């Protein structure tokens, strides 16, 4: 691949400028890519974002502690629950509220189901970028089952808005844990189907191995986290290193990229790491469901007054795209004076031009899909 790129780079052609976006099927969200092309080889990439800026962090300053919580759902709509989890954990720390164990377990189950759902979406993006429509439909069929579970417990399929300061909005509905277990078993068998159809398909390997390689050095330079960093061999997982919710009491592994079919940190490694993370999430969900404790699901009732305190908190959770940080500051008022998120897609977007440079134009959608970017959390 490197030799091939060098050969292409020697082509003496006029440079072409092409702006893709802000809306284009090859892009993960509203953004503009300013490409300089040498033939079909990408010579330079400039990224322009901000098309879906909503002033989200400022909104939190205008809301009370409780009424700000639904907005945390919108940090990354594809994995909505993680914004709520990190905000709720920060708020609870500042306000001195503890969520009961059952609530923490429900939060953990929701997080892992959302992780699987988000990873499935990234598989769909990946398959779409490669024109593999059958795999798209297979994954979407299974993702529907996860959305059904969300609907069963929260009444919503996408923006769940289920967390509350001090716990969750409701207890799990009857039969929910059994259905979670059934879906987990089903998904485990589906993984083999995915592998047969896609993961080790020669055409898929041909498009992804050696494509968009993230080096260990790039991980450290840009501060990458999540599956993209783990695919490059950097085994950093907030759930393992700084356990929160119920992650300290469950047994799971952190998959890392091994370059089995190409190079460590290439697009195929990123796909495989996510696929293996789905299996780990299934294990976590099953363990938590089996050990679900009895007791209350909310420590502070909806009508109880929370006495605000002054202070600040910064916490991180492991979202499907990496470490999602949240900083919350309080001066003892009815709401926070500052809320700031540190989403993982920001460093991922920063590394993207480096990965695309020297590659072929046709690989750009594959690189973008393999990075699993969320432009919503970049723009906020």
């Amino acid at each position, binding site marked *: 691949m490197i030799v091939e790129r060098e050969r292409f780079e020697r082509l003496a052609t006029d440079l*072409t400028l*092409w702006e893709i976006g802000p809306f*284009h*099927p*090859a892009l993960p969200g509203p953004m503009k890519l300013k490409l300089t*092309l040498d033939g*079909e080889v990408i010579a330079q990439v400039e990224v322009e974002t901000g098309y879906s800026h909503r002033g989200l962090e400022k909104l939190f300053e205008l809301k009370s502690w409780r009424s700000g919580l639904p907005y945390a759902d919108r940090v990354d709509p594809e994995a909505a629950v993680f914004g709520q989890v990190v905000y709720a954990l920060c708020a609870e720390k500042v306000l001195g509220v503890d969520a009961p164990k059952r609530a923490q377990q429900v939060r953990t189950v929701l997080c892992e189901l959302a992780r699987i759902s988000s990873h499935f979406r990234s598989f769909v993006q990946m*398959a*779409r*970028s*490669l*024109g*593999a*429509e*059958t*795999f*798209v*439909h*297979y994954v979407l*069929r299974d993702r529907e089952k996860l959305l059904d579970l969300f609907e069963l417990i929260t009444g919503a399929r996408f923006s769940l808005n289920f967390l509350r300061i001090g716990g969750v909005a409701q207890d799990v509905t009857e039969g929910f844990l059994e259905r979670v277990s059934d879906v987990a078993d089903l998904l485990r068998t589906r993984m083999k189907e995915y592998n047969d*159809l*896609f993961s080790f*398909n020669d*055409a*898929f390997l*041909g*498009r992804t191995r050696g494509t968009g390689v993230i080096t260990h050095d790039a991980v450290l330079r840009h501060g990458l986290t999540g599956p993209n960093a783990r695919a490059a061999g950097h085994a950093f997982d907030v759930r393992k290193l700084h356990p929160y919710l119920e992650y300290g009491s469950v047994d799971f592994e952190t998959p890392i990229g091994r370059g089995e079919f190409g190079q460590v940190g290439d697009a195929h490694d990123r796909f495989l790491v996510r696929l293996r993370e789905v299996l780990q999430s299934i294990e976590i969900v099953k363990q938590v469901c089996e050990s679900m404790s009895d007791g209350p699901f909310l420590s502070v009732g909806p009508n109880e007054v929370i006495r605000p305190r002054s202070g600040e908190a910064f916490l991180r959770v492991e979202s499907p795209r990496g470490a999602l940080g949240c900083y919350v500051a309080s001066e003892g008022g009815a709401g926070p004076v500052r809320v700031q998120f540190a989403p993982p897609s920001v460093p991922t977007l920063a590394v993207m031009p480096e990965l695309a440079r020297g590659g*072929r*134009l*046709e*690989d*750009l*959608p594959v690189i973008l899909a393999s990075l699993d970017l969320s432009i919503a959390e970049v723009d906020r």
Partner: protein
Amino acid sequence: MSWREIWIHVLGLSPSAPEWLVAALVLVMVFVFAIFPFAALMSLLDRKLSADLQARVGPNRAGRWGVLQPLADLIKLLQKEPTEAMGWREGFWLGVLTLALYSTAAVLPLGSALVLVDTDSSALVVFWAVAVVAVCLMFLGYNQDTVPGWFSGTRLAAQALSGAFPSLLAVVCAGLWAGGFEWSRIVQSQGASPGAWAMVRNPFLLLAFAVFMGGGQVILSVPPLGSGYSISDIKGGVASGFHGRKIAFFRLGRFYGLFLWCIVATTCFCGGWNLPGFVEGLYGADKDGVVAQKLIEPVLAMSKASVLMICTTLFGKIMPTLRSDQVTDFAWRVLSPLALIALIGTAIWMLGVPG
């Protein structure tokens, strides 16, 4: 009986009717009664089978089981008015493309009564048409004056060039085996039963058949070798400038290209329009019996072609799309050597294997 006598008998024309009139009527009938309904049927089958394969419902609204969906699509697309006037360059290249593509109907090997022109280069005419279509598509892409248009046009031309060479060699294998390139000679060199098909009687012709089908996918940019059209960086490519009525004709043209390729493959390697013996026995040897047999031949040939088309299309639904440089590499580095092996092997087989 010649095709002219058959059609004069079928249409009830005067025996002195001029040949150009009969040929024109036959071509109109081929399109109206064979190609257009077949396109609708294949479109429906493609969508239904793809839906089954992909665990979804598929078309089920227009008519019972969605059988009227192709008609509904056509009516919808034809009703759409163009948003901008067609430029003269686009009109010119579209015109040339249409003429080149559909003129092949005169040599389309659907049956002995439908091959209007059967020369000693009939099997090669298809390559002329495909080459013209590729050039037209390239200029249509350039004419869009957009980056997706340029890249798509260039990719399509490069793919057509790379796929044409192995495909041509594959057809030469069939011609070598048959002793000529007339359709009638190629068909007569084979039998009706699968055991008597060229690709079964000679393993190198089986290889040539595989090369021909692979080459066709490259030339016509059919998924998974369809990066000229369908890859997401240039989403739509040349076709991205087409809307409404133009997209209806564009899809018909894409269908016709694949149909042409599959009917040629059927004729060269899969027994063509040869009818099984029991069918011949069903009809008498009189004029009506012969005419009836001649009219069944296209049904058989098109059935075989439809199987090839469905397999090709479904294969494309499953596999990820290759990059255009991978497609051309595949054609030059894999298909071309295999085609050469098939050609040399066929020649040696013919010399060395008796009968």
